[in-house]
């Protein structure tokens, strides 16, 4: 079996724009799920609202496409009622960090056995490019026409502080690493959070000098700083470049978790 079998083939091609990286992240997630040897009937995909949240509609399992920001709350109900199920949540930065921020931190605090894959395109894609809680300072969006003047969230730091067992960050360029990270997330009992920075050519790139899809992917590649490298820099008291973001496994621990398979 390959991960290709996990798609609802009658639903493809999906509605994502040409060049959108969400499809890449679905591939990597399903490739990891496929390696787990999970049964389709025991695996549930849950999502909220937004581009990212259309993902479960293309996956051949029971799936729950819910209301804006609430995916993790719905998933909590599914997982608590049936700990036997493997529950994976697809969410986006606006969905999870803005309207659903409270559910996110509380799921981390409970350390409930979910795997959350956050497709962070740093903007509201589906509604047409409004600023989100992860839009970097200075970036243009339709609601920050003069450049975003608010500080963005570091979702991984948030998850770690709130108590998640597994936290990692990759980008849509790092497909192999992402696949592995999702797999570790799926294996880890407790709350696993994988943030994936993803290109959004339509809503983000167009406004922020990434007219070509590849320009943005290249930016994600060149500005990602491996955690090990960052740690080395810190060790040597060397400055960490400010315009880069850290990728890699940021937290793996074994705190008591909720809703773990009996």
């Amino acid at each position, binding site marked *: 079996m390959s991960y290709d079998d996990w798609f*609802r083939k009658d639903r493809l091609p999906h509605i994502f724009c040409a060049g959108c990286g969400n499809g890449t992240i679905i591939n990597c997630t399903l490739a990891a799920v496929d390696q787990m040897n999970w049964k389709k009937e025991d695996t549930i995909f849950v999502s909220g609202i937004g581009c990212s949240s259309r993902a479960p509609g293309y996956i051949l399992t029971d*799936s729950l496409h*819910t209301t804006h920001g609430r995916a993790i*709350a719905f998933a*909590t109900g599914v997982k*608590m009622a049936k700990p036997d199920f493997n529950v994976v949540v697809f969410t986006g930065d606006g969905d999870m960090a803005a309207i659903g921020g409270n559910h996110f931190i509380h799921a981390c605090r409970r350390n409930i056995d979910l795997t959350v894959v956050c497709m962070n395109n740093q903007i509201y894609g589906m509604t047409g490019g409004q600023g989100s809680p992860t839009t970097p300072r200075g970036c243009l969006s339709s609601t920050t026409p003069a450049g975003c003047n608010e500080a963005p969230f570091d979702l991984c730091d948030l998850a770690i502080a709130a108590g998640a067992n597994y936290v990692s960050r990759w980008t849509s360029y790092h497909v192999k690493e992402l696949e592995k990270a999702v797999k570790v997330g799926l294996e880890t009992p407790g709350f696993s959070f994988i943030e994936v920075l993803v290109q959004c050519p339509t809503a983000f790139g167009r406004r922020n000098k990434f007219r070509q899809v590849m320009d943005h992917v290249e930016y994600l590649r060149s500005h990602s700083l491996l955690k090990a490298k960052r740690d080395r820099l810190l060790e040597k008291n060397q400055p960490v470049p400010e315009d880069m973001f850290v990728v890699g496994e940021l937290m793996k621990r074994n705190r008591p978790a909720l809703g773990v398979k009996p």
Partner: protein
Amino acid sequence: MTRVEFWQGNTACAEGALAAGCTFFGGYPITPSTEVAEHMAAKLPKKGGVFIQMEDEIASMASIIGASWTGARAMTATSGPGFSLMMENIGFAVMTETPCVVVNVQRGGPSTGQPTMSAQGDMMQVRFGSHGDIAIIALCPATVQEMYELTIKAFNLADKYRVPVFLMTDETIGHMREKIIVPDTVERVGRKPFSAGSPPFRVTDKDLIPGFPTFGTGQHVHVTGLTHDERGYPAATHPALHEALVRRLVDKIENARYEMADYDVINPDAEQVFVAYGAPVRTVMQVMHDKKDKNIGFLRIRTVWPFPEKALFAFKNAKRFLVPEMNLGQIAREIERHVCVPVRTIPKLGGELHTPKELVAALEEKP
């Protein structure tokens, strides 16, 4: 063997849920409904169920919908402010035809209002509060005994009609302790079985209710709050499909209004007719008992939504309907839509139950 208990309304509600086989409770503390959650927290895990205190009422509603799809009988309890927060996900439950039970122990509003006082101000919100055209079922108990019985009924109706069912009680009944006779067995009506292989939202039966494809049974059902076709796939820009879906969701409830109607008609030949639900029923009963007048009729409603308007027509000589409500006349307005005689609202705000004296005064006033 039945047994006698002296229970608070909220306890009776929780016990009713346990008797009905509720296995999942997701809630958030709010006066005056908290005792339901507390009782469930103490009892549900011992019965193998799951109690979880969520981070807010939005999450509570979300969690019970998620749990319901795994096959659990799921429930939450709240009051006005929390109920308002639940509205969006209530619409989701209606759209996705998810059975669940929501208890609203009503308190004085708007806003934080009167947390410890009684009201019936959410009767229209429950019917129309979520956006779009929805249809739901709302039950109103007037005794602690009914708190128990109607909670069980709420689970059965939710499963049968695949719709959120609301136990719209009030602080008066929720906080009152009263004698209750607990039966040793209760009736359970489960969900319509799903015939494997067919599209999950295809309806072939006259009752317009599709079978329930529980998660984990290999049906690979996609559940979405978007307008969806019979396969469950989003089809949000399809006008005819949307109309057909919303009409079905409303019709499956409204067409069954007489089937699920639950009311008592007392003195049908009377000219003056009280109509009441919830706590004010108690005051009307006191007045009926004290007056012993065949010319005073009483329609006591337990299933308020869908509204059983046929029951009003049982009073053929009615010259006037008197409607005591702990709001400014919400269900009175619904009654006005159906009858040609005057409808006298007897509103009561402030958190206290109507006194018999107040009802007698309304009864005796010159038209």
